């Protein structure tokens, strides 16, 4: 590493330690799949995985690889390709500490995290079994009005978050486009690891048209270039899902042998794909 900010994908993945509370975005927001492959290759363990607010193939692979001890998510789904088979199996086996959530509670908890406040209130939740099984969520009386019970959830401050984005500049600013949940996630996290499609010589903050959709470098710990780094998932308008690979994963991962076969194939792929 000549520059502390810029790293290889493997070096970047090396900053996710065993036992870390790791936040990752939903499938459409830019999932760092190449970096996830490095995590699996290294055999990371005991993660507290926070899916913002849901997870897909990335979470299912991490669970199948025994990398996850605690899972906090509103859902695990492969979208059109069905539910997460390794997730369902881990639930049956009881090997996961499951913290079922609901999407807005994950976002709100991260917003509390970015503000440095201990908890945040939000509507809904009361009377659901989601709430009943979250001993860390409480109901309080609205201190400003009578007869208004309201749910409060503790802030989430991940040790590290990791995502994939289209572009960064040489100063370490990262363009995230419409995916503003990535900015919230990074604000709340102590470290932020980003893989990108490319690095531009222009300064992204100097460009008024883009600056509002940029995560400033102060939040960013490391950046690595990973061409098509979200594949087999899509990245915005840049590339679509690799449907064949996703379908193959959905089929193979129904059994643990099939999952291992997928993993072997996936881990043997070159870092940079065509």
């Amino acid at each position, binding site marked *: 590493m000549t520059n502390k900010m810029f790293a290889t994908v493997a070096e970047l993945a090396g900053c996710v330690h065993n036992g870390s509370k790791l936040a990752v975005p939903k499938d459409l927001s830019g999932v760092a799949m190449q970096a996830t492959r490095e995590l699996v290759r290294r055999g990371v363990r005991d993660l507290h995985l926070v899916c913002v607010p849901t997870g897909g193939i990335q979470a299912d692979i991490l669970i199948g690889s025994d990398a996850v001890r605690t899972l906090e998510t509103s859902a695990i789904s492969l979208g059109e390709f069905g539910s997460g088979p390794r997730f369902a199996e881990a639930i049956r086996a009881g090997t996961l500490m*499951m913290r079922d959530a*609901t999407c807005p*509670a994950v*976002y709100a908890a991260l917003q509390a995290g970015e503000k440095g406040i201990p908890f945040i209130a939000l*509507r809904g*939740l009361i009377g*659901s079994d*989601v709430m009943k*099984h979250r001993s860390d969520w409480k109901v309080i009386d609205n201190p400003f009005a009578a007869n208004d019970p309201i749910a409060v959830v503790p802030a989430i401050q991940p040790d590290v978050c990791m995502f994939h984005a289209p572009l960064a500049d040489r100063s370490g600013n990262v363009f995230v486009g419409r995916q503003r949940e990535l900015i919230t996630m990074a604000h709340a996290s102590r470290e932020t690891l980003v893989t990108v499609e490319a690095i531009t010589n222009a300064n992204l903050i100097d460009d008024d048209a883009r600056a509002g959709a940029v995560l400033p470098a102060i939040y960013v710990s490391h950046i690595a270039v990973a061409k098509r780094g979200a594949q087999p998932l899509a990245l915005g308008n840049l590339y679509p899902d690799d449907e064949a690979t996703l379908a193959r994963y959905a089929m193979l991962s129904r059994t643990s042998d099939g999952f291992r076969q997928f993993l072997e194939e996936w881990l043997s792929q070159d870092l940079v794909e065509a």
Partner: protein
Amino acid sequence: MSGFSRTELLVAVIARLLRGCNHVAVGASSPIPGSGALLARSLSEGQMRVSVLGSQRNNFFTNGGVELFDLAAEGRIDAFFLGGGQIDGRGNINLVGTGGYPRSEVRWPGSFGSAYMYFLVPRVILFREEHTRRVMVPQVDFVSAPGSSEGVHRPGGPFAMLTALALFYFDRERRRFRLASVHPGHSVEEVRDNTGFEFDCAAIVPETPGPDETILTRIRGPIREEIAEVYPRFAAKLAAPRDPSQPAAPPVV
């Protein structure tokens, strides 16, 4: 059923249920609700906004994933869709699983935003094509979101439930479903046989009206093209616009 498929019927019914809404939001994995919402918008002559999650063209959100939920809490979403692996007669929905918790024998993806949206959106339409006793149960195994609440801020809740067999309305006073109509080719007895809970039912239940030619033309033309952006495989299965020189395609049921 003649001249239209079940999917086309459901899309048309959804569009009717959305009449008068200013803003309809559609969540993930919802091709039929998405098509119904786009149809409702096209019939509203510019009065309705529709936000389709996962779409670039039909999604104006610029504040990230939280915007949908903030809009709901501010009362800026009039209608939304939820489903459920299990639904019971009090409108409780289960998106988590069956056979114990947390070690569920059958585990589904999870509650998504239901534990919030169900409380806040006035017109929640429960959409679940499978209408069997394994879905329509006496009591859900896990309450992802309750059908009703007491003493809690709750402007929202169930409005209707649409399945492959029938349309129900939810009576919030009585906390029960009322059978509104049965789809062509099905009967009240069939609905009863496949429902694991009691519901209200008039002596005579009308048949769900199907889409007329104007509506069908829109579904098979512009709506199909629009929904293809998010659900290409679903759109490919929707019947193509009919060439009048060709015989009508048999209904896909």
